[in-house]
Every structure is written in C-alpha cells, then in structure tokens.
C-alpha cells in the first residue's frame, strides 16, 4: 500500500541548526539570570555573556589572527612611509593634513582586519567608522568657510548704496 501524499509545507521556516538552538538556549538562560535579584549572579551572567561573545567572534573570524597582524604591520609601515613622503614633498599645512588622512585611512583598514579576525566587535568597528568620518569632515576645506563668513565676504563685495 502506498503512503498518502504529504501536504507540501508552504512558508516553513528554515530549520535552525543545532548549535544555533543551543546558543539560543544559553542566551535565554543568561538573559533570565541578568534579571536576577542576586547581584553576584547578575554580574556572573554578564561576564558569561561577554565571554561567549568573544568566543563567537573568534569562531566567526574570516582571517587568522596571524594574518591580521601581518597585514596590520604592512599597513602601518606603508602609512608611515606615506606620511614621511607627504611631509617631505608638500608644504607644511597640506603635508600635515595628508598625514591626518593617511593615519585615519590606516586605522580604518586595520580595524577591518581586526573585525575579520574577531578582535573587534561590529559595534566598536562602527564607532571607529563614525570617528573616522567625523575627523575627515573636520578636514573638509569647504567647511572651513562657514556660512556667516561667506555672507560677510559677499557683503564686502557688494557695492554699498549711498
């Protein structure tokens, strides 16, 4: 006798793998423990959660820590050479601004390696990006002439009546 056809299960969620199930359970336990009235248990739960996050970062790493260190060293040496060249071949202010840009770019690239090797969390990586963005904005030459200054300059150029 043949088995009746099974109804097709539409909209079925993707089966969660077992390690993800285990991870969910552990995180649920830790969340419950964080709500504990016992402060020692709460701090132990926070510590366990942090440790777990660090472990995850290391497991999820896309590149090995050794490779990240080598790449970061190459970037640092390259940045130092570029800074030296910028200071030697450009006038003072431009050279100094180039050095700032080179250092910011080097820090961002090293942060990318640190992120992929599991030494930097996504939150801290985003903080680095925001910081770098802020620094580069402050170097923007168009921003140095602020709106009141432009208005004042325009006023000076306009012929005065009377």
């Amino acid at each position, binding site marked *: 006798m043949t088995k009746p056809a099974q109804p097709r299960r539409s909209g079925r969620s993707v089966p969660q793998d077992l*390690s993800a*199930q*285990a991870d969910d359970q552990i995180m649920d336990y830790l969340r419950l423990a964080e709500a504990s009235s016992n402060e020692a*248990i709460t701090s132990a739960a926070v510590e366990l959660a942090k440790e777990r996050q660090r472990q995850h970062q290391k497991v999820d790493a896309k590149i090995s820590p050794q490779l990240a260190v080598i790449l970061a060293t190459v970037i640092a040496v390259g940045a130092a050479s570029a800074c030296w060249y910028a200071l030697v071949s450009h006038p003072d202010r431009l050279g100094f601004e180039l050095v700032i840009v080179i250092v910011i770019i080097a820090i961002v690239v090293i942060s990318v390696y640190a992120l992929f090797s599991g030494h930097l969390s996504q939150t801290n990586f985003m903080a680095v990006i925001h910081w770098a963005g802020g620094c580069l904005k402050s170097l923007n030459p168009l921003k140095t002439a602020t709106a009141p200054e432009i208005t004042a300059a325009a006023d000076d150029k306009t012929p005065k009546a009377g």
Partner: protein
Amino acid sequence: MPSRKFELAKQENPELAEVLDRLMAYVELQSENGEKFFVPKLAAAALRLNDGEAYVLLEKLAKAGVLRRAFNVYCKRTGALLATVQTEHELNEIPHCDECDAHHDTSDLRVEIAFELSEQNDLTRQAA
C-alpha cells in the same frame, strides 16, 4: 564530600557560597539517585531559583572543574536520547536515529543543555 575544586569555586565566589552549597547538595543527591545529567530547569525548581540563575551557578561549577557542560540531543518524535556531545561544534555531527531508522533533519531534533560530573570527580566518587 566536597571536593577541593568545589571549595576553590566557593572561595572565588564568596557571595555565592551559600547557594553553591545548596546546588552541590542537590547535585550529590541526584548523583546518588543515579542521575547522570543535571538540567538547569530541574535544578532551578529544586532550589527555588529561576532557570537562568541555576544555569549560571552550574556554569560556575563547570568552570571550577566540578561539572562538565554537555549537550543532549533528542529525537523530537520518540524522545530518545541520540547523542551527548561536549562542544557546540559536535552538534552538527549527530548520528543516525535508531528508533526511527532515519537521519533526521535538524528541525526534528531537540537540544538540551545539561551538566554532568567531570570525569575526575566521577572517578573519585566511584572509588569512595
């Protein structure tokens, strides 16, 4: 009889000493009754804690080397214990289910976090 590792765990967490004592008494009682695994949910019910608190205390004992964390994998259909593994990576190498005579999809399996006495503690207990 409390082990040296347990005493060290209490010394490291003096503010948890009282509750760790209660937990250890529970573990010993369960062990004497032939229970191999200590599940946070059951420990919590016995000690009147929430599940998370029991889990954290069991983890403390695991870190001290008194217990060892394990993952029990059950067949959802029959409830049979298919495997006990020590690490999360091993969870993805679950054997054939003899009860159903099938290789289950992960959605047909259930994981339970449990703790067992560490090998050294087990041997000491057996010798006693």
